[in-house]
């Protein structure tokens, strides 16, 4: 694989990940992704009670 293609693929993957991560929950639900409430069971920031939204 061409080095530039590989690097651009990695960058696009990272961008897509961030867009999905920071998309508002309402918008996510509208486009058929998770409704955001599932975050309530995670502990993304390592704190008790954190809803894992970042």
């Amino acid at each position: 694989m061409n080095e530039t293609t590989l690097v651009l693929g990695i960058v696009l993957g990272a961008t897509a990940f961030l867009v999905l991560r920071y998309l508002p929950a309402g918008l996510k639900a509208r486009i058929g992704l998770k409704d955001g409430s599932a975050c309530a069971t995670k502990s993304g920031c390592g704190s008790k009670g954190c809803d894992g939204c970042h």
Partner: protein
Amino acid sequence: MNGPAAPEIALVGCPNSGKTSLFNALTGSRQKVANYAGVTVERKEGAFVTPAGRPIKILDLPGTYSLRGRSPDEIVTRDVVLGRLEGEEIPDAVVCVADATNLRLVLRLVLELKAVGRPMVLALNMMDIVARQGGRIDIERLSKELGVPVVETVAVKKGGTAALLAAIDELPLLEDPPTEHGWREPSAAEIRAAHAEAARILHDCAFHPGNEQFTRKLDRVLLHPVFGVVILLAVLFLMFQAVFTWATPAMDLIKAGIEAAGVAVGEVLPDGLLRSLIVDGVFAGVGAVLVFLPQIVILFFFIILLEDFGYMARAAFLMDRLMAGTGLHGRAFIPLLSSFACAIPGIMAARVIENRRDRIATILVAPLMTCSARLPVYTLIVAAFVPDRTVFGGFGLQGLVMFGLFAAGILSALAVAFVVKKIVWREAPEPFIMELPDYKMPAPANVGLGLWIRAGAFLRRAGTVILALMILIWFLSTFPAPPDGATGPAIDWSIAGRIGHFLAPLFEPIGFNWQIVVALIPGMAAREVAVGVLATVYALSATGDEVGQALQPILTAEWSLPTALSFLVWYVFAPQCLSTLAVVRRETESRLWPAIMFAYMFALAYAASFATYRIAGALLT
């Protein structure tokens, strides 16, 4: 009964009684999580089958100390139990979950639930801890006194729920439960009578070895109006000293490991885009954040230890007087304390505050408490600009500055709360009642598990959000490439470089250069990313001998002391986390409050940084 469907049981109990662990143990993965209609209170429903083959639906209700319902969470619990929450069926039975190590708290709730008149089981959770502490509870007598079946459970252990399942099978669930109930809002005299009745039952049915006397003796010192506050300040001061001094060897080791790995990978890969992405983006950026893992672990080690020992509730008690002076409710202490980890759980924890104005005031100031994401930024700048020497007979100057930064966060939160509650919204304060748990030795396994969870969360964050952000920052700092014959660092021609140069005039009055401006933008997604961005931007800006230098000496050489101080002050006040603003929007159900929060924090940060930069500049020239 809910039509032809399975009977529904409501799980009720005080906060931290192990209710959710019991819910998880009963239902496993058969859970549905949503919100109650119209409120931001989580609704958790699950299902299980009893040993007799009876299918049961179970609702995990928010924790409450009574049915009086003072906060949105507590009101939901009360209304579900009383069958008056729209869209909810009346539960066919109630399982009341009690922390057996702190029975006094739940007995009053049990007495209230009994008045409701639904079939009920009392599950005494954490009975293993009671036994380990040498305590005893006379289950039979307790059951007779309360008039309900009482079972022992250990929700965190497999098989700890067998007795509860058997008791549920015995419950007389009615085909058509009556809608009326026998509960009404108790008067002050009735509350006092319930207190006395709970104390009597506790005295007759439970025995705890000499811990209460030990607690009372220790409280005489730790809750003393003067010595108590001095001890609290000393504990916090020692905590920040330790964060700085204990972490250094581990941080040096991680730094050396990351640098060695970066050099090794750099030698293997040929010069080109992929090498630059991995060395300048991933290793320089993510590595610069990962280095702070030991400090995060040490900070949480102290927080978990103090919480498990029972000291945090005392700290809340000591702080109440100070907070009342600023107009904050005593219940705001726990949300503000949670904000030391991250403002998001702190803002969510503000749900326990019943008065909306008190709750909004707490939410508005929560992000001013120093969250753990600020720690890498503070550490980097303090280590680069504050001399590593001792003052006042042995205290580390760097730790002292760190303590000052945390104190600045607390004081500014109290000052803003004062303005909001004493000047904008003038209201008489509401009384604050809290139960202080007995002191107990922290369980090493619990402390270890807590650290494992927090370290795991930090590493997961570094491997996901921060890694993705660093890849994006590398791309924006690398493309477009400079035209042929261009001079100076290539980053000047990149998108990030152009954005930085474009916005730099706005931040020039507070001493920020364009590299700092570039770091502030992704810092909106995660504050600590600013450290990684600075590492990447300076790595890509480097020419000749500067290439490969660690970030700290670069900053010492490139930034003036007033700029460093201004940057630190910016981080104390700035609204730098989009997730926090999103949670404020969700919790307040309004766009106004996150907008107000952003505006006041930005104005405060800019004004404070401006003053710091100018005053420091004048004093140092």
